[in-house]
């Protein structure tokens, strides 16, 4: 297990030199929340939503979570192309532990990236219990792992064509973020839009986090359903990623 932690830290150190991008993400969040979020909340007048700035803050954190999850997949592809993946594959640890390290590295990155925005959001919402905060954080991690697993699964495309991978991931990201409830509650969505939004994992992630943070349950999805979808997503996509690492990555040319 020590080697897994070493691997996570070694890779994370690379990401943190310099840590500008993380600080920039926090900065972007602050600007979005306190300028765009504050202004747009004055235009939204829906009693079911309550304070839209808070609704928007949660949505933005979910988008950041999605971004980190996607980054984990891209990071894996970069490792393959830059030659670090063959090195990792040659280290004296099992493939399962290597995969665990890649996943935990994504988790560590997620913690770093959303730590400050989440603290700001929680402070803004206020009146929260430790349990509700822990449940919201667990939901974000579950979503992050699910998206990371999905992107790791798709990363195999990059071994054939990195252009195709970039195009697919960009297209998928656009659809998954825009056609979801990260920025708008489900009950206000037109029926066609709603049908598509229900297929996005971000819908389940954002609605469940909002539920734990005290938003009105009547504007959100059924939480049991959301938990089931998110857990299924994380388990299935991470399983797929593990399978790809074991079966496919070792069979293709990279670097």
């Amino acid at each position: 297990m020590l080697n897994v932690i070493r691997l996570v830290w070694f890779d994370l150190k690379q990401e943190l030199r310099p840590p500008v991008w993380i600080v920039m993400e926090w900065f972007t969040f602050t600007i979005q929340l306190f300028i765009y979020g504050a202004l747009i909340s004055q235009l939204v007048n829906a009693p079911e939503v309550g304070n839209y700035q808070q609704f928007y803050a949660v949505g933005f954190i979910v988008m950041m979570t999605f971004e980190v999850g996607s980054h984990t997949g891209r990071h894996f592809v970069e490792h393959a192309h830059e030659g670090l993946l063959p090195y990792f594959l040659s280290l004296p640890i099992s493939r399962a532990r290597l995969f665990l390290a890649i996943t935990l590295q994504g988790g560590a990155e997620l913690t770093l990236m959303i730590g400050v925005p989440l603290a700001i959001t929680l402070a803004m919402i206020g009146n929260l219990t430790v349990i509700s905060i822990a449940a919201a954080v667990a939901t974000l991690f579950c979503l992050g792992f699910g998206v990371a697993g999905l992107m790791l699964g798709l990363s195999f495309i990059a071994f054939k064509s990195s252009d195709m991978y970039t195009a697919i991931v960009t297209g998928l990201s656009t659809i998954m973020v825009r056609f979801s409830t990260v920025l708008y509650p489900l009950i206000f969505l037109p029926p066609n839009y709603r049908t598509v939004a229900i297929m996005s994992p971000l819908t389940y992630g954002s609605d469940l986090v909002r539920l734990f943070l005290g938003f009105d349950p009547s504007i959100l999805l059924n939480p049991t359903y959301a938990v089931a979808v998110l857990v299924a997503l994380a388990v299935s996509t991470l399983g797929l990623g593990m399978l790809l690492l074991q079966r496919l990555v070792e069979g293709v040319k990279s670097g």
Partner: protein
Amino acid sequence: MYAVETQSLIKRYGKAYALKGLNFTVNPEEIMVLLGPNGSGKTTLLLTLATVLKPTSGTAKVMGLNVAKQPTQVRQILGISFQDARGFWRHRPAEILEFHAAMCGIKKTESKPMIEETLKNLELWDARNKLFMHLSGGQAKRLEVAKLLIQRPQFAIFDEPSSQVDLRGKRTIWEHILRLREKGSTILVATNEVREAEYLADRVTILDQGQCIVCDTVQNLKDKITGGDIVELELEQAENNADFQEELGKIQGTAKIMPTTNNKYKAYVSIGEAWVPKMTNLCYERNVRVLSVRVTEPSLDDVFMSFTGKKLETDTNA
């Protein structure tokens, strides 16, 4: 037991075969050099043995462990120095080596002096605090080699260990690879540099298009070339007797005799050391005085040419 053994090893990328039923062995504590041009399957073989790639079919064993069935155990006894040292962009040489040593289970108290010594030996000490992305190609390559010198694995794999390194640096790397073998490691080196192969090899395997063409010691491989040794013979006086050249041609192992001037001959022979005494006997019997004899051995490039009909691509730094 062989340190490494492959049987009918096949590795295919789509429809293209990188290894075509390769049978190959390495003895314990031996330096085996894989010689072959780019695309001959050298790197694929190394990556398969290192469990980075899975074989399509056939078997490959390292110290008796099957690389497909016991990959984690195999990785615990081997180390690989890759052809391209890349990907550590924002790390420093010392911390890359510390990480590698720790991953290989070497205690910090043990690894620290070894890292310092290796960095100094490979002339990387002054660059120890530079980020990897600021290292020169030669420095990055030496760092890649340093990982194995610190790890001291039971089975060490070097993929073109001195490419991009200057001549002095090459010698240093070769010396350290030889020392690693003295400490008990079995070593497999892939190269397309003739000088590197001649310097390091106990045995050489010539690979071409994913197949083993021939495997033997450097000397035996050279001796296998018919007419590979060139003996330049200078007589004190011109030998007018016409049958002298014919007599030279009849000496066992002679491929061709060519007079270059009226008292100089060039003989293409199989084994120069065996041919020269016979030639001197002949000269003694015929009362012909020899002024000088010069024997030139074929290079491994000639050996490769002889077995494959192709020239090796060689590094101009060599």
